[in-house]
């Protein structure tokens, strides 16, 4: 008897909240199709005369295609190298007994508590004065290539790989690296995919570190480009900015909607067991 209103209220809450969550996306999209004057009048929701002019100026004047490519290849290189190195580390911590393992693992976990801002200034100095890596993609790929979160994450996955399988391969004379490459990696594909999505997204959306490293226009990633599109104070170029925002958000939305399950599995694995 009491069930019906409870159900109705629940659905109402869930639908209402989902609508609130989606509203900024729809506003971003509809504004990107409006001319500047209409955005600033702010009186319409749907564009009166939809135009692709904002996108045209984004791709012609700001060379957005190049920025998208920069973002993509940096994210792809960072993802591939970190997933492989984290899988390797996770495998060692999960499946080998070696002196100091517990200490090294604990040390690695503790290292996650070090906020990026603490090393930002000296790291920038290092990148500029020692490595001469300003305006190159290396600072966005190398320092995070083997990170504590990824190793911890992969270790949880690797624990479930049966030891018998590894021992059988050893008896057959497989090399240790061969075992990792031909047996361990193929059996942990779901974990690798989850981690790859997390790494790709965080690299694609990363802002602070690219902002300090990528100064020249031609090497910028999409978020850094958006920041420099802002224009002078008082007249923020919202028309081009909204088009740029759509371009920056859309690829991630597609990836997310296709691979949603993997991502959610990835996020919750640390929270509940830990």
């Amino acid at each position: 008897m009491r069930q019906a209103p409870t159900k109705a209220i629940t659905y109402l809450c869930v639908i209402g909240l989902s609508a609130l969550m989606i509203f900024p996306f729809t506003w971003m999209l509809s504004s990107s199709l409006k001319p500047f004057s209409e955005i600033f009048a702010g009186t319409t929701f749907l564009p009166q005369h939809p135009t692709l002019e904002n996108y045209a100026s984004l791709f012609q004047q700001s060379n957005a295609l190049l920025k998208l490519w920069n973002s993509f290849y940096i994210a792809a290189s960072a993802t591939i190298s970190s997933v492989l190195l984290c899988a390797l580390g996770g495998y060692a911590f999960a499946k080998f007994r070696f002196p100091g393992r517990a200490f090294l693992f604990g040390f690695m976990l503790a290292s996650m508590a070090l906020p990026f801002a603490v090393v930002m200034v000296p790291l920038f100095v290092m990148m500029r004065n020692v490595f001469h890596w300003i305006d190159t993609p290396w600072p966005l790929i190398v320092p995070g290539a083997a990170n504590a979160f990824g190793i911890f994450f992969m270790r949880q996955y690797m624990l479930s790989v049966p030891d018998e399988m590894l021992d059988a391969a050893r008896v057959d004379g497989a090399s240790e690296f061969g075992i990792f490459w031909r047996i361990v990696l193929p059996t942990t594909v779901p974990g690798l995919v989850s981690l790859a999505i997390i790494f790709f997204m965080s690299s694609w959306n990363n802002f602070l570190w690219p902002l300090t490293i990528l100064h020249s226009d031609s090497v910028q990633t999409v978020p850094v480009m958006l920041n420099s599109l802002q224009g002078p104070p008082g007249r923020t170029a919202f028309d081009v900015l909204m088009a740029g925002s759509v371009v920056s958000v859309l690829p991630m939305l597609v990836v997310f909607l296709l691979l949603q399950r993997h991502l959610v599995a990835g996020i919750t694995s640390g929270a509940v067991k830990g």
Partner: protein
Amino acid sequence: MLTEPRHRIREATLAAATEDLGEDYEWRSDSLRQRWRLAVRRHRWPLLFISPFFVLFAVFNVYPVLFSFWLSLHDWPGLGPMDFIGLANYTELAHDPLFWNSMLNSVLLFFIYVPVMTFLAVVLAAVLNARFLKLQGLWRALIFMPNITSMVAAGYTFRLILDKDSGALNHALAFLHVAAVPWLDDVWWARISLGLLMIWAWLGYNTVIMLAGMQTIPRELIEAAKVDGANAVQAFRRITVPLLRPVIVFSMTLSIIGTFSMFTEPYILTRGGPIRATETPVIEIFNSTFTDLRFGYAAAESYVYFAIIVVITLLQFWTVSRSDPVR
């Protein structure tokens, strides 16, 4: 020779290091160096596999942290000779209103959005966990979507929506005959707006964590309470929430660290304004470095910032472990 303390420490480490060499290895009077070499050779594969992390950590974290301390004792515009000034940066920092203002802003922001967000996340997780709810995956995905969005894009979109004169929100409020709210132009409203952006971005993430925690609670427990006459709200308060405690603590810890390392959201939404009301410690460190070109001072700020985060995190763990988990 081996009686010297530092040799004894080496001996002990070595004993630990070689403890599972197995019986096939016959102990002879090998030198320490030979025994080290044997241990490393025997465990060369796992050591090789984990070495990338430790090498990169040493080069890109340990070394910078040490270098940063050296830097914090100097006056240095980023180029040219470094001027040793001892602890002057730290004494200046102790009385720097900008730095402490940014710390205070983080604390205020934390109290503005984290309690609301955590509460909403727990309730929302309970709703999504309801058995009768159809399309659970769809709702979860929709609520999670903001979290995968670039905060630069989201920040600009919020700036447009919250604009005092042409923003969608004030137009909607005008429709309801509510006067225009200075969302981004008033000290407190700007902080609230930033909180709204944070809730929008992170509610889904926290809900997913809570939901995963909730799904580990056996449904029989709640069914049993209902058989005993508890209604849904009572069962939620007396059973679900206490059992969910570790997960709530985990998410609060992440929120504390997240609030203190906030950069992109205020940098894009409000540029730290108005009158520095949303300037966070990371923006402050960023400005000291790249606007004021005071690298030594920024390094000192980083150190104090880190110390404060460590203290706050420890305090939180201490309060959590002291209070009784079950009433």
